[in-house]
């Protein structure tokens, strides 16, 4: 079967053009009669030009007819002619209040169009704050005892760039090969970092410590760094080439921002809950302990529990090649955790890890109220949620 060159016929070549004279000639005789007169096709822009019969020889004089301005991103009018964009809008089930022009703007990264009036930098900034607010309030209310490092990791797992790239791809958004005026507005437009090229340093961070060897403690990360505990670059917006995951991340954030602007905070919260917080994460797998035995004994001393003692619950094959010990950690007469391992030391370590996770992963319930629920009209009176004094320090 002969390969169809669909790209040449439909879609992006025609949509961005406003005048028939600017259409690049191609050896296709358009079948006008077979098409319904006015549908939301991507090729519908082409349908409008009634006498579009061009052959190879009829080269149109492009230079004479093109306008002299060449924008780095598609014009706003193109948003109405893009079927990709309309389909994306409908796929995300956005309300009609969010216009297509805004959707088109969310797909233009600052690295494609540095003009702040046409790129998504402002929307992404707004949407990123809203998303991280909802993610962190949900995490803090659902797992009030999470250590700060694990809280950073959980926030990264829910709203980090890697996840947002997955989200954007699951929404069916593709990237344009290169940004430009002629690109269909339904594609994500950014200039991609070449492989092997290092990320440009963006003028240092906003942290007050000058030297790189200064210790970055957790408390200082809460104050100075972003929601994942990474440093914030001093130069907030830059139009340098960037990795794909960052472009997708700012697109998803910009969609949240546009939902917030056009439909309000309740709709933005529902959007974040449906698309970001509904994703699956085994939060117990985010922990990496260093000295669990000592940490557990410090925890018990802090909380006033009795000193934790490791006790053998059961064992098999002690003198064999593959023994298994099941060790429980007891504080007084209460069992805090248990673990199985091929040696007593490993089983005790596992039991301590289990007990510490059971402490840190305490949750008042899956449907715990979060502060933003108070914004709704007629909300019940706020009951204070459980607030923990923090992780164990030793």
């Amino acid at each position, binding site marked *: 079967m002969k390969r169809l060159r669909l790209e040449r016929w439909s879609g992006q070549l025609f949509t961005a053009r406003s005048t028939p004279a600017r259409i690049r000639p191609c050896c296709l005789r358009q079948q006008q009669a*077979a098409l319904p007169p006015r549908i939301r096709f991507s090729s519908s822009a082409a349908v409008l030009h009634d006498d579009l019969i061009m052959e190879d020889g009829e080269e149109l004089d492009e230079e004479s007819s093109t306008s002299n301005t060449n924008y780095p991103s598609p014009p706003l009018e193109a948003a109405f002619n893009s079927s990709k964009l309309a*389909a994306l809008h409908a*796929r995300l089930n956005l309300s009609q209040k969010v216009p297509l022009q805004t959707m088109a703007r969310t797909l233009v990264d600052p690295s494609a169009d540095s003009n702040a009036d046409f790129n998504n930098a402002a929307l992404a900034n707004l949407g990123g704050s809203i998303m991280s607010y909802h993610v962190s309030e949900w995490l803090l209310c659902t797992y009030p005892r999470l250590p700060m490092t694990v809280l950073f*990791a959980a926030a990264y*797992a829910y709203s980090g760039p890697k996840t947002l790239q997955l989200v954007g791809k699951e*929404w069916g958004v593709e990237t344009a090969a290169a940004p430009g005026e002629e690109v269909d507005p339904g594609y994500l437009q950014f200039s991609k970092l070449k492989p092997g090229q290092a990320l440009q340093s963006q003028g240092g961070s906003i942290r007050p410590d000058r030297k790189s060897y200064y210790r970055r403690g957790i408390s200082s990360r809460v104050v100075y760094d972003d929601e994942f505990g990474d440093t914030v670059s001093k130069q907030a917006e830059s139009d340098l080439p960037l990795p794909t995951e960052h472009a997708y991340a700012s697109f998803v954030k910009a969609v949240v921002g546009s939902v917030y602007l056009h439909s309000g905070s309740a709709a933005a919260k529902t959007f974040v809950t449906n698309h970001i917080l509904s994703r699956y*994460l085994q939060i117990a797998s985010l922990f990496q302990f260093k000295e669990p035995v000592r940490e557990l004994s410090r925890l018990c001393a802090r909380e006033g529990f009795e000193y934790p003692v490791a006790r053998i619950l059961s064992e098999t094959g002690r003198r064999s090649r593959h023994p298994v010990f099941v060790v429980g950690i007891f504080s007084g007469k209460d069992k805090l955790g248990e673990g199985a391992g091929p040696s007593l030391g490993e089983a005790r370590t596992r039991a301590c890890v289990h007990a510490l996770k059971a402490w840190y992963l305490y949750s008042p319930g899956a449907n715990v109220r979060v502060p933003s629920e108070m914004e709704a009209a007629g909300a019940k009176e706020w009951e204070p949620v459980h607030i923990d004094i923090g992780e164990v320090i030793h």
Partner: protein
Amino acid sequence: MVVQGIRKATVGQNGVGAFILQCKRLDFHYCDWAGSSKGMNSFLKNSLTKFAALNPQVEITVSPRPRRHPVIRGTYINGREKAICVRNLTKEQVLQKAELLRDANGEKLKKVTKPVKSINESVRGVWSPYHDGGIHV
């Protein structure tokens, strides 16, 4: 720093929370001349507008494919494609095929033996031979 966090990414569960239709795009290819495209052409003239209005999530393109059988080709979010040849089918049958492609998820067809597929951890836990003490009432 005592406990460290391990960076991971969450896994999407389509339909839990939001549902995204997996069919991204439907291409309708027809031929003006050949008789096998008769039903397809009638579908394009009469029903496609309604079909497109009912399914705004799907991008729809129509293009000629002279001297070939008519084809509907679906492109899916997972990157795969599915094509159905609709030669000699009537208008209603073409609509059925289009709906079939719209509802597909793009994966290869496979036998579904278990009614429920879940990545959630079992609430009863994984069976372990070392914990069979049981409860003595």
